[in-house]
């Protein structure tokens, strides 16, 4: 493999990894802070992508669609937390798994009813619709670089939010000891609602920016969810750093696995997970935001 082909695959790995990180960070935040395992997280990714499709068709611009979509998904997150997830805090894992599994079924059928089961494409916004030439025959699409850039910016913002702001402090405190925070007079319910809405928005946003690249299809929520689980298992639950490292590892393993060993394409990620489980059953990084 020559240098430029390698570079292209490397850039692809990083882009895929960063996108996975975006989705997985929402999942691990919700679990790390609220203690809820949310199987429907992949559905939010799917909802984001379908929103990007319908809103950009209506408004003519993907960027407008993304802004609208983020607002809508935060509203959805607030509603879901109020209606359903707030009842899950004291429940055991089996019940959380089942309720969120039921939610997946509901979301999939609603999508089928509202938008149908077709596969759709979304156009890359004109500003990004060009490629950087690398050699005479190879070039790299700028949109993918934009995606990676956006993910990095969001990752930094997320870190700033959690580590450096007052809200972040409340979130971290609430993760340690919910009752104490509540008895100190802080509105922990509101904090949880915001965190959940943030998690939903992250997943939906990832779906929206990924739509031009991966197209919009019914099974996308499920496939991203399973890989997210692998990210969280490898990275360690509740650790956003772990999710980043694990997502990048998976991006590398998956992309180079597909290129170098096409027969084992889908299994590379699971083999990586099995190997890491042998070495570190709790994940690479322990709990810690």
């Amino acid at each position, binding site marked *: 493999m020559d240098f430029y082909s390698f570079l292209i695959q490397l850039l692809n790995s990083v882009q895929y990894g960063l996108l996975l990180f975006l989705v997985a960070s929402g999942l691990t935040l919700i*679990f790390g802070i609220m203690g809820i395992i949310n199987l429907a997280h992949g559905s939010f990714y799917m909802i984001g992508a379908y929103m990007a499709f319908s809103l950009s068709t209506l408004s003519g611009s993907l960027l407008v669609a993304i802004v609208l979509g983020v607002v809508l998904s935060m509203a959805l997150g607030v509603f879901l937390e109020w209606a*359903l997830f707030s009842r899950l805090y004291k429940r055991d894992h089996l019940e959380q798994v*089942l309720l969120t599994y039921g939610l997946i079924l*509901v979301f999939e059928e609603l999508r089928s009813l509202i938008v149908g089961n077709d596969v759709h494409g979304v156009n890359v916004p004109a500003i990004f619709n060009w490629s950087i030439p690398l050699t005479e025959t190879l070039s790299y699409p700028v949109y993918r670089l934009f995606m990676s850039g956006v993910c990095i910016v969001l990752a930094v913002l997320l870190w700033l939010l959690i580590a450096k702001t007052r809200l972040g402090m409340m979130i971290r405190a609430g993760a340690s000891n919910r009752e104490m925070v509540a008895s100190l007079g802080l509105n922990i319910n509101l904090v949880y609602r915001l965190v959940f809405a943030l998690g939903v928005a992250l997943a939906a946003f990832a779906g929206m920016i990924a739509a031009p690249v991966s197209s919009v299809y019914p099974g996308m929520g499920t496939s991203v969810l399973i890989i997210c689980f692998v990210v969280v298992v490898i990275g360690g*639950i509740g650790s956003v750093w772990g999710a980043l490292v694990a997502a990048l590892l998976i991006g590398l393993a998956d992309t180079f696995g597909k290129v170098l060993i096409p027969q084992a394409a889908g299994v590379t990620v699971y083999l990586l*997970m099995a190997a890491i489980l042998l070495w570190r059953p709790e994940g690479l990084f322990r709990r810690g935001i």
Partner: protein
Amino acid sequence: MTRRRIALAVAVLLLALFPLTGSAFYTELVTKVMILAIFALSLDLLVGYTGLVSFGHAAYYGVGAYVLGLMAPKYEAANLWLTLPVAIAVAGIAALAVGAFVVRVKGIYFIMVTLAFAQMFYFVFHDTAFGRGSDGISMNFKPTAAIGAFVPFDLANATHVYYFVFVLLALVFVFLRLLLRSTFGRALQGIRSNEHRMRSLGFPVYLYKLASFGIAGALAGLAGYLYALQFGFVNPELLSWHQSGNVLLMLILGGQGSLIGAVVGAFAFVAMEEIYSAVTTHWQLLLGATIIALVIFLPGGLASVAQRFQRKLIGGPPNE
């Protein structure tokens, strides 16, 4: 207690006499339910009694089914007595292989990794040549129960299949009941209660959990084999996480931690599926909404409804 025993005996009798109603459709439907009941019982050992919530149990169900699919020769019938033990063994070994990795992990991780490994199995059957791909495998002939020249029953006959499955369900039920009363079974329940205490008492917890995982996998493989036997067709969707989710749902429908609950849950699930799919093609929406409602309002499953009803009628002690 005696009231329960009578109810159980009546239920068994009804099941035994059911094919006499003559309806071919319902005989096959109840056979399907009994197969799912075996599947649910296998998971109940793991979830209800060992406390390990697996979201990937369909993998071993599918493996059992695919063993028959792959072993069945194209132009003659496979032999039941050869293929059935192989299916159970292969499913059990697959479960032990996965369990070796997965049982070291606890709580939420366990749910996630079992799901991930099941997806890996799904991928192998869906996307590789080994599993014959997403079209699945059709079998031209039902397996034969022949031992030499003697043919005890005919598996092409729906009523014979019904009774064969019925006997196996009874055997699995009795086996699990005895297993759970043994020291091994008690240890599993102790692990579910408090793993650290069991470890400090000297039990090799990892091995016990692994054994439970393996047995559950083997029994799931039995159920999968029976599915393939009944329908003559296997496809990768048998290993999908929808299947894993559905069997977990059966447990919560019936109430966990009780063997009868697993069987009741299987019946309730299929009843729900049949009723909902008759109402609309988007029946999964109704299923999802029911699951959500169930978790929020009835975490003890249908068994808790029965308990509350009993309390109202008889005013007995609050907990049995």
